[in-house]
């Protein structure tokens, strides 16, 4: 019932877009590099997986690359730029101590200490945010992606209390005036709802890779964790990887290659 409702909405959106394929001028200028409005045909070859996951090659990350990926993500999803403690972040960077507080790493190798680690929602296997949400506005898809229905969220912020990774942001005010590059192909939010990274589910549906993965130049490896032949499984077999806060028991799908 629920999934059929969502399928219907998706189909409806696709056909609406398909009928009106072309450029919708009145929506304003899309950011440079934004794609054309997809048609129904574009949804014929979605990227699918049993369990989407991400491996982050932390050796390649510095603040600059984090910023590049964050900009790609935030532009794709109309994430507003709000300074200060009420800000909204889908993709951001932090030092080792903040990223892995439960490791209490002392006397770390210098390069490990000086990397900037990209942070985003871990798309957990046992997501606490889904467990606590009273309206099912936060839900987990069969392919492991933890999604948000911005129209159902009542803004109780229980998910923010539940997430052990600080991966969620709340729209304390109308975000629209703070959007730098407006992407007409992704909705904006209203005030009073929570938001977070969605693994670019909307791009996967079009057969594309997530925006940050595209922007990372190979430093982010994205793929099916349940397929032993996938790139992500190959790299996880070869290199040592950490997951954040394993003691929280949420089972992150994001791996940090050290």
């Amino acid at each position: 019932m629920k999934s059929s409702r969502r399928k219907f909405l998706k189909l409806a959106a696709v056909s609406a877009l398909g009928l009106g394929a072309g450029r919708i001028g009145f929506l304003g200028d899309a950011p440079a590099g934004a794609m054309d409005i997809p048609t129904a045909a574009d949804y014929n070859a979605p990227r699918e997986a049993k369990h989407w996951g991400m491996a982050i090659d932390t050796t390649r990350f510095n603040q600059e690359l984090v910023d590049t990926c964050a900009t790609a993500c935030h532009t794709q999803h109309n994430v507003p730029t709000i300074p200060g403690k009420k800000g909204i972040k889908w993709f951001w960077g932090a030092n080792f101590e903040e990223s892995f507080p439960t490791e209490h790493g002392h006397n770390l190798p210098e390069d490990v200490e000086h990397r900037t680690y990209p942070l985003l929602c871990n798309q957990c296997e046992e997501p606490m945010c889904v467990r606590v949400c009273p309206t099912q506005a936060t839900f987990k898809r069969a392919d492991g992606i933890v999604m948000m229905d911005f129209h159902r969220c009542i803004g109780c912020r229980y998910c923010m209390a539940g997430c052990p990774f600080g991966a969620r942001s709340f729209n304390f005010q109308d975000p629209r005036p703070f959007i730098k590059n407006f992407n007409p192909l992704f909705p904006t939010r209203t005030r009073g709802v929570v938001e977070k990274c969605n693994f670019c589910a909307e791009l996967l549906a079009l057969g594309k890779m997530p925006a940050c993965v595209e922007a990372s130049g190979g430093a982010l490896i994205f793929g099916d964790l349940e397929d032993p032949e996938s790139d992500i499984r190959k790299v996880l077999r070869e290199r040592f990887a950490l997951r954040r806060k394993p003691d929280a028991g949420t089972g992150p799908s994001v791996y940090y290659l050290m």
Partner: protein
Amino acid sequence: MIEKALRGSPRYWGLIIGLLCVIGLGAGFWMFQLTKGLVVTDLSRDVSWGFYIAQLTYFVGVAASAVMLVLPYYFHHFKAFSKMIILGEFLAISSVTMCMLFVVVDLGQPQRMLNIIFHPTPNSVLFWDMIVLNGYLFLNLIIGWTSLQAFRNNMTPPTWVKPLVYLSVIWAFSIHTVTAFLYAGLPGRHYWLTAIMAARFLASAFCSGPAILLLLTLLVKRLTSFDPGKKAIDTLATIITYAMCVNVFFFLLELFTAFYSNMPGHMAPIVYLFKGFDGDTTLVPFMWTAAVLAIISLAMLIPYKIRQQGPALVTALILLVIASWIDKGMGLIVAGFAPNPFEKVTAYLPTVPELVVSSMVFGIGALMLTVLWKVALSVRAEVEGGNISMVPPKPE
């Protein structure tokens, strides 16, 4: 019986009008919050719940505390509480209402609030909290009103009330347990992640709630001819004393677990509260005030000689209410969020709009309480003779 609320002394009407003004002012600020969003609060990405949710937590305790009268009265036939029991039930009604209003003013999208009912989600504790709070409200409304009506007509309450009363006793424990479960069980929040959370909640409820009830009752006793009886006052004071001892004991258990184990995650929030963490000492003065007041109140409550004297009792109760309010209505929620998941602290102190909106909710609670108590006391005066219109009590 409600017509009893419509006749009252100038002082009664003055109080009503005063409360309406407070409510009106707060409603104005709430409108402001509705148009601007929760940006008018000091909440942040890190401290995502604050003053509103803390008040919910505190007043759930006040509501649950009615059971401290109901239980001895119905289970142990402790008749001395007969005059106060209705006051406790009506206090519970107004407290639960305030709790629910605090959730509403805290929502980012209050107009979507019914989504909780349209999409029932049994895995979310908030869903169960809504159920138990509403249930408790209705139980107390039905029981309180029916018993009062029976009393007025000089009859024993109908037999179907009895099972409801027993249910309400269990229910009272459930509202505070479920509210504690809102916090306990979140893996990232060490201050809340403790099996004793629900027990601590109940202990603090059973001292602070009856303390507020007793203070209000003593106030009414002063202003009107209503007298709950010395035995009732003494017994309630004893209950409060025991509950406060247990409350403090439970907190000491938390200290032992955190500091003997030396686990950084468990120590950090307590260090934050009493010493400051990551350079932030916002709550330190408050928490030490709470600790000192708690000790003084216990020192005054434990010796029976001091406790049974009116002025000392009132002072001790006021100190106890302040201490428990700082602990639960300020420290508990913020320390759950500080340090945040990155072991950093983001400061939080309620803003003026937050406080004024809260005073709207307090005002609504106080208004309901005034009207309900007025009805209850008028009925009592009508049945037993005497009047409650501000006649000073007869000298004993």
